[in-house]
């Protein structure tokens, strides 16, 4: 059992998170002095080999099959189980995408392993990896260590590892053909779709004022809406606001909504759950208004006001209007 296997994600295009997982796997392979192998599951005609060949790897493998063209839990789990058994790696590293969340725990369980899901960091003690995860919605960090026999499965959170450390290479890409029959795949997937036509484009908005749970009820939304208007900003929201139907889903910022990178992101009553942070941490300037000084949003904010949003926001709206009129 040796080697670091990183399983990349291709869904018509490469999942950007694949390269962050590759960065984590590269570091792991270097520190544990083990060969680095990258693999991807793809359909017969998916053009994945060329891109993989440019990476610095010991081996690059495409698991190709008609039944891997479209993702299913069963198809991916069966194919990747065969590949992992064949390669017998010490580590299996995956990007923490929605697809990986769907199949990787099941894949790991086939090896009697628990997935160390959503790791945000990696360090080494006596040459052995210690994985850092967040608990209780980011309020605590925890160190996890693999102690069992069999491969260690880890998934890597978005934004945790930088891809600029990756160096180029020229890897020969091999093909692996799993034994897979249509009768083994129990799920019948339909084509993915988007909920509705998008009428706001938060992704390109230069200024965003975003509202979260702290607003308490729908009738209070105008408090934040007025600030957005005064600033000429688009209105965004965290997930619970859209779940409650207080604002349409197209205004949701975060892993299940929009990824934004405005010049200014002003977060009002948003505590900063990780799913939200991954959607907005590319913002140039972040300002947070929140009553809880320990809220994780302040860790990514440049400026903050700890206070009651129902006092601070109207005062801010008035002050901004005053400057605008001056």
């Amino acid at each position: 059992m040796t080697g670091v296997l990183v399983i990349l994600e291709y869904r018509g295009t490469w999942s950007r998170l694949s390269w962050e997982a590759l960065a984590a796997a590269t570091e792991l392979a270097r520190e544990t002095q083990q060969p680095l192998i990258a693999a991807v599951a793809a359909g017969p005609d998916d053009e994945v080999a060329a891109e993989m060949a440019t990476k610095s790897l010991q081996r690059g493998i495409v698991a190709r099959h008609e039944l891997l063209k479209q993702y299913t839990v069963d198809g991916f789990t069966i194919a990747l189980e065969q590949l992992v058994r064949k390669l017998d790696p010490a580590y299996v590293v995956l990007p923490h995408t929605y697809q990986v969340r769907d199949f990787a725990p099941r894949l790991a369980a086939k090896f009697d392993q628990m997935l160390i899901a959503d790791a945000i960091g990696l360090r080494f003690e006596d040459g052995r990896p210690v994985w850092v995860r967040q608990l209780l919605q980011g309020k605590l960090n925890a160190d996890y260590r693999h102690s069992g026999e069999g491969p260690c499965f880890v998934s890597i959170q978005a934004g945790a590892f930088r891809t600029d450390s990756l160096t180029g290479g020229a890897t020969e890409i091999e093909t692996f053909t799993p034994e897979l029959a249509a009768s083994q795949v129990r799920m019948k997937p339909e084509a993915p779709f988007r909920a509705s036509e998008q009428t706001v484009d938060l992704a390109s908005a230069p200024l965003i004022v975003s509202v979260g749970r702290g607003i308490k009820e729908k009738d209070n939304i105008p408090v934040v809406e007025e600030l957005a208007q005064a600033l000429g900003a688009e209105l965004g929201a965290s997930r619970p606001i859209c779940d409650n139907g207080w604002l349409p889903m197209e205004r949701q910022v975060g892993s299940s909504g929009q990824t934004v990178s405005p010049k200014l992101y002003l977060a009002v009553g948003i505590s900063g759950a990780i799913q939200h942070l991954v959607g907005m941490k590319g913002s140039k300037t972040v300002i947070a208004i929140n009553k809880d000084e320990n809220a994780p949003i302040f860790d990514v904010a440049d400026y903050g006001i700890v206070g009651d949003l129902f006092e601070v926001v109207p005062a801010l709206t008035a002050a901004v209007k005053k400057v605008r009129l001056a």
Partner: protein
Amino acid sequence: MGSPRAGQEAFATNMKILVALKQVPVRDSSLHIDSSQKWIDEEDLSFEVNEPDAYALEAALLLKDKHGGEVIVLCAGPDRTAPSIREALAKGADRAIHIACDDLRELDTLSLAHRLAAAIQAEKPDLVLTGLQSDDLGLGQTGVVIAEILGIPHATIIMEVEKRDRHVRVKRELEDGWFQWVTMPLPALLTIQSGISKLRYATLMGIKKAKTKEIRRIEASDLGPPRRSSVSLDRVYLPPKKKAAHLISGSPAEAAARLTEILKHEVRVI
């Protein structure tokens, strides 16, 4: 393992749905690391049903409202789980199974999933629902691993469930606002996303009725010995501050005035 229930005709109309619930510390609790440095001090904490699990129960009750059938809740934990179990019964679940144990923090996901799966197997439900992840550990895999142990198909991050003859058609959430419908045969396991519908409250009548509903207690030891963990949690600690936000103090008006200055002269957006 995971063989369909006997009497297939019966389940075409009446589904037996099992919902696995976990208790977690009440949201926004103030947390203190305990002396072992491996978990939080639970002494003074209040607990509630993990939010995604509450939505899993809601999804089960909606299916029951529409198609009839039976909803069974399953919860592993110490005696403090009793109010959460009663609440689920008051909301409309028909009966409950409580796996009595106080060793949850010593178990990894696999061990816990094996324990839950053993209890589920005895019930042979058509559908097993649970939340997509817990608010405390957030590993998001207990449900998926249970499906693997039971040998049944699963789907995660589910927004809607449509019951078909001997199948379910479910709406999966994908990234960036995309969705996908997937159909799979029963029995199956689904992990439910938070916020899929409004949560119902228990009615007075429901609370009254709940008192007569069965809560079966199973000792964890009757479900087999705990397994050796493949992963250990060594230490918990406060996350290091990544970036010190410049905090603006003063009264709301003073802070607002100062922030407006910053917006004008430093961020340059007004």
